[in-house]
């Protein structure tokens, strides 16, 4: 048997093993830090807080207690509002950056657009609290202009929570939509124009459908991050209504009730999974 012959058999085997070797660290990471904790959380959610033992009470608490249900409804409402407003603001912003700003200024413009990312999330939320407060910039300006006589209640409301979220997620969506717009070949628009389509029609029938993946990726990230966020509603919402992450934190912080917190977290994950399945077909950015 020649050395060359051995190598010819060995190489394909090595070739087959190489991909597995390369993905093993990622698989190990996922197993250790997602799958196993998820299983532990699932088991915990089926355990009674007092005395241990199997129970479905943690789940039934959610489905039978209206104030728990309300937290999920609040979460979905806030998340939906934030996602829609963020898309409506981010798309024109991304389009201006990609289409109207000269190429050489785009990098700087993009950096300026995401500048708020550089500040701490908590600090940014508290800053909004001061801006929206009774004696804050907005109320003082409106009173100074004579538009209102008494300060509006802006802080500690759902409006404040949505504002804080939108400020953050517009940046995220701008990035994903901008990336998608930059990948779009100018040939599509030229072809549409050759076929007699005006700018509006070209946008609605060519550009928008082709940038849908960018919108959906950003929207899904917004949905996931928004529905799981505790800090913004806690700081800006004034606890005047609870969302799911606040309810989870209440179980842990107040009673050390990890089983109920686990059950609520599993339910929240189920909602995120449904959202993923609903928009899975768009969750990819392909070169157009």
């Amino acid at each position, binding site marked *: 048997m020649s050395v060359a012959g051995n190598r010819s058999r060995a190489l394909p085997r090595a070739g087959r093993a190489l991909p597995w070797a390369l993905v093993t660290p990622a698989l190990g990471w996922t197993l250790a830090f997602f799958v196993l904790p998820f299983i532990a959380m699932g088991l915990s959610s089926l355990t009674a807080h*007092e005395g241990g033992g199997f129970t479905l009470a943690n789940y039934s608490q959610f489905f039978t*207690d*209206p*104030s*728990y249900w*309300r*937290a999920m409804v*609040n979460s979905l409402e806030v998340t939906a509002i934030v996602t829609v407003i963020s898309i409506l603001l981010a798309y024109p912003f991304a389009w201006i950056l990609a289409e109207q700003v000269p190429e050489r200024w785009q990098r700087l413009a993009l950096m300026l657009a995401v500048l708020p990312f550089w500040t701490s999330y908590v600090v940014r939320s508290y800053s909004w*609290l*001061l801006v929206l*407060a*009774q*004696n804050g910039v907005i109320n003082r300006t409106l009173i100074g202009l004579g538009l209102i006589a008494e300060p509006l*209640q802006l*802080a*500690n409301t759902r409006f404040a929570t949505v504002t804080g979220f939108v400020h953050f997620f517009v940046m995220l969506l701008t990035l994903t939509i901008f990336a998608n717009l930059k990948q779009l070949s100018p040939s599509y628009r030229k072809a549409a124009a050759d076929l007699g389509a005006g700018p509006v029609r070209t946008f609605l029938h060519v550009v928008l459908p082709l940038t849908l993946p960018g919108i959906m990726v950003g929207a899904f990230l917004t949905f996931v991050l928004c529905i799981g966020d505790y800090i913004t509603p*806690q*700081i800006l919402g*004034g*606890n*005047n*209504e*609870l969302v799911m992450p606040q*309810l989870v934190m*209440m179980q*842990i*912080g*107040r*009673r*050390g*009730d*990890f089983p109920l917190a686990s059950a609520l977290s599993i339910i929240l994950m189920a909602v995120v999974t449904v959202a993923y399945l609903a928009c899975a077909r768009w969750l990819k950015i392909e070169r157009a």
Partner: protein
Amino acid sequence: MSLKTTNPLSALKSQLAAACAATALLFAAGAAQAADLNALIWCDHADPALLDPFETANNVKVNVKEFEGTGAGLAIVEQSQPGDWDVMVIDSIDVPRGVEKGLFEPLPEDKLPLADLFPEVKMDGSTVVGGKRYGITEKFGYNTIGFNKTKVDPADMQSLAALTSDKYKGKVAIYDYYLPVIGMAALAIGKKTADLTEADLPAIKAELLKMKANAKLVGEVTASQTALATGEVDILVGGGEWVTAGLAKENPALDFSIPKEGAVLWSQSLAMFKDSKNKDMALKFIEYIMSPEGQARLATSSCYWGMPANSKAALSDEQKKILRFDEQPGFLARAQAYPAPNPDLDKKMQDVWTEMLQAQ
């Protein structure tokens, strides 16, 4: 000079040596940590002005872990190894919970200044279990009405009824901790906080909902304190000296009252862990905190002020004035115990609280 000039084997060896050195350093740090004092605390104990003198005098590092609420503290202990923690700050009424779980070590009474404590806050009913002392009250205060006396009529603040009156609609914040505020709601409807049962919950809930209807926000410590300090609200339900005293210099208009219906007395205790590997140092720490100097520093901690349990705390006249030290006998006579529900009632109280938070 640069890595490019080093052969790969040498680079690997030097990296291995660095890794070994780092590992040795970690082990050394671990060994040093074993001799440290590990304390599960509330934020007032994290103040360097409180810890530095003890660390310097005893050549020890105090590692602190902050938590809020007994449930969270006990959850941290459950997830730790026996011996990880040496001392714990805990609501005085919850000391028996720790004893039931077999966590705490009896404290030697002869080493503690028990005779100097305000008698009303010794709380032997909670801190002594089975004839043994497991906790010592270190700090106390009131969950009552905190307010801005330039914005509200101080006379109105002498009754809990003001909290639900239309006069102050939208001017109120509620401190987001269910036990003391439920206690205040109970006082408002004429119930004693020590006698609360499940049958009282509907009336308490109705009172809480009336408070919520008047409230602009329900906030944890920082949020509620900020709301009162910045003028976002004029009244804080559940506030007290722990909110107003620390801000007295910046905002002398902030004050608190003990209304005619009474107020809820809060008190925090120190306990030592049974499995502590450093019991001598843990006891020294408790002795230090309970000393007149330690008590003064704890009472005026940067996180929040509160009354020292030791009546001989070395406070300045100005600090005593801010804490209304001389009025304590009258306040204590009107204060009622912190609600101490059993686990079942506790859960039902939290459900009532959640309903109040969700009410529109």
